[in-house]
């Protein structure tokens, strides 16, 4: 595909994704949370009972749609290919701590954009941390960081996460007693668009993200490393379209979709230092992983079993975050959460060092 066509495609896709992000809030999702990979994996973990935080338990169809949308698009474009073996355990640990960072900030990089588009200026401080984390990750890349290559794996390995998503969807629809759903008014988990809408939104965004290689970390990373603007254009398109859509919804409906400021923002806190450090950890970890949480879901749908391990790391990280009081809330970060973020930065830096400076040549 010609470079100009690629850029046009990602801008159009970004605009569609931004509009879908805003509309999901209109149809019932929590404010500034049309999409949040971290929050939605956390909600799903809660629904399965691996954490018992009552306000955040719901099997999010958006996640199911993202994986299956990517899977179907990869099948259609003959890109589905099962690969793995590139330091899977390390990727699990990185995924775990990326989640710890995201739940300190209260959102993944995708939600960071949507929070900015909703006027939440805390996300600007988060974005500063995110960019700094990416820059530190780039330092390691420039020094030769690598988790080594993948190899082909049996096809069945690449089908694991898509099949899990189908099972999750069945559980969501059947709602058996052993699945936990946040009760009305209990918190963000109780706010959601209709199942069908959320699923279709996820499928569309998953397919578009697979086709365009959309990645929130990749945008800043490629701009700094190669002066390549393609991915950052997608990032900007999501921001602009979600912002415009929020302003339209603000004036055309009774709801509040855009409030400029820091205090009182939905599902957010105002502790700048920890917003910064939370997304610093997420940005740093995601560069070492090769992509943001959204990208990991998309790669999982394409058959990358290392990304499946990363998603499992995110899932377990979310469970730990709520079982051990690590996740922040609207009241701010917890002492345990601060310690976990510091440990996370140390661990991710350690992973960066040993895979950069202690590599044995083949």
């Amino acid at each position, binding site marked *: *595909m010609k*470079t100009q066509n*690629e850029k046009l495609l990602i801008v159009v896709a970004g605009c569609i994704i931004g509009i879908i992000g805003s509309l999901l809030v209109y149809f019932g999702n929590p404010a500034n949370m049309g999409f949040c990979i971290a929050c939605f994996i956390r909600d799903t973990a809660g629904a399965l009972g691996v954490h018992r935080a009552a306000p955040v338990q719901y099997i999010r169809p958006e996640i199911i749609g993202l994986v299956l949308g990517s899977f179907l698009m990869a099948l259609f*474009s003959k*890109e589905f*290919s099962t*690969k793995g*073996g*590139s330091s899977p355990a390390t990727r699990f640990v990185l995924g775990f701590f990326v989640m710890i960072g995201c739940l300190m900030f209260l959102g993944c990089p995708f939600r960071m954009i949507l929070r900015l588009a909703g006027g939440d200026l805390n996300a600007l401080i988060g974005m500063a941390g995110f960019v700094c984390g990416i820059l530190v990750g780039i330092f390691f*890349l*420039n020094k030769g960081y*690598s*988790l*080594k*290559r*993948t*190899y082909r794996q049996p096809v069945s390995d690449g089908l694991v996460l898509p099949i899990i998503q189908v099972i999750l969807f069945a559980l969501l629809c059947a709602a058996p007693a052993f699945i936990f759903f946040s009760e009305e008014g209990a918190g963000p988990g109780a706010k959601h668009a209709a199942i069908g809408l959320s699923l279709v939104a996820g499928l569309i965004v998953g397919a578009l993200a697979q086709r365009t*290689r959309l*990645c929130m970390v*990749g945008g800043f*990373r*490629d701009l700094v*490393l*190669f*002066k*390549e603007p*393609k991915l950052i254009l997608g990032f900007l398109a999501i921001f602009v379209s979600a912002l415009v859509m929020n302003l339209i919804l603000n004036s055309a409906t009774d709801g509040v979709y855009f409030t400029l400021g820091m205090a009182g923002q939905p599902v957010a806190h105002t502790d700048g230092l920890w917003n910064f450090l939370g997304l610093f950890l997420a940005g740093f970890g995601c560069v070492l*992983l*090769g*992509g943001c949480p959204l990208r990991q879901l998309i790669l999982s749908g394409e058959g990358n079993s290392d990304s499946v391990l990363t998603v499992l790391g995110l899932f377990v990280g979310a469970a730990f975050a709520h079982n051990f009081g690590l996740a922040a809330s609207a009241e701010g970060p917890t002492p345990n959460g601060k310690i976990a973020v510091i440990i996370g930065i140390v661990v991710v830096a350690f992973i960066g060092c040993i895979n950069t400076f202690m590599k044995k040549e083949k």
Partner: protein
Amino acid sequence: MNTIDARGLSCPEPVMLLKQAMSSGASSYEMKVDCKTAKENVTRYATSQGYKTDVKESDGEFTLTFTK
């Protein structure tokens, strides 16, 4: 010709390897990748550096030749 094997590597390692190799200023390079994303990324970078790209696909792997 310089040959770079970037099969199986995560983003953005294939482009970094190509960038590193192209800093030597040779007139041609050969590169192996095993996914379309890497193929697109290295092709875009080579084009930005003024190289023409020739692609051969075999069994899901791509051999790219960049010439100036």
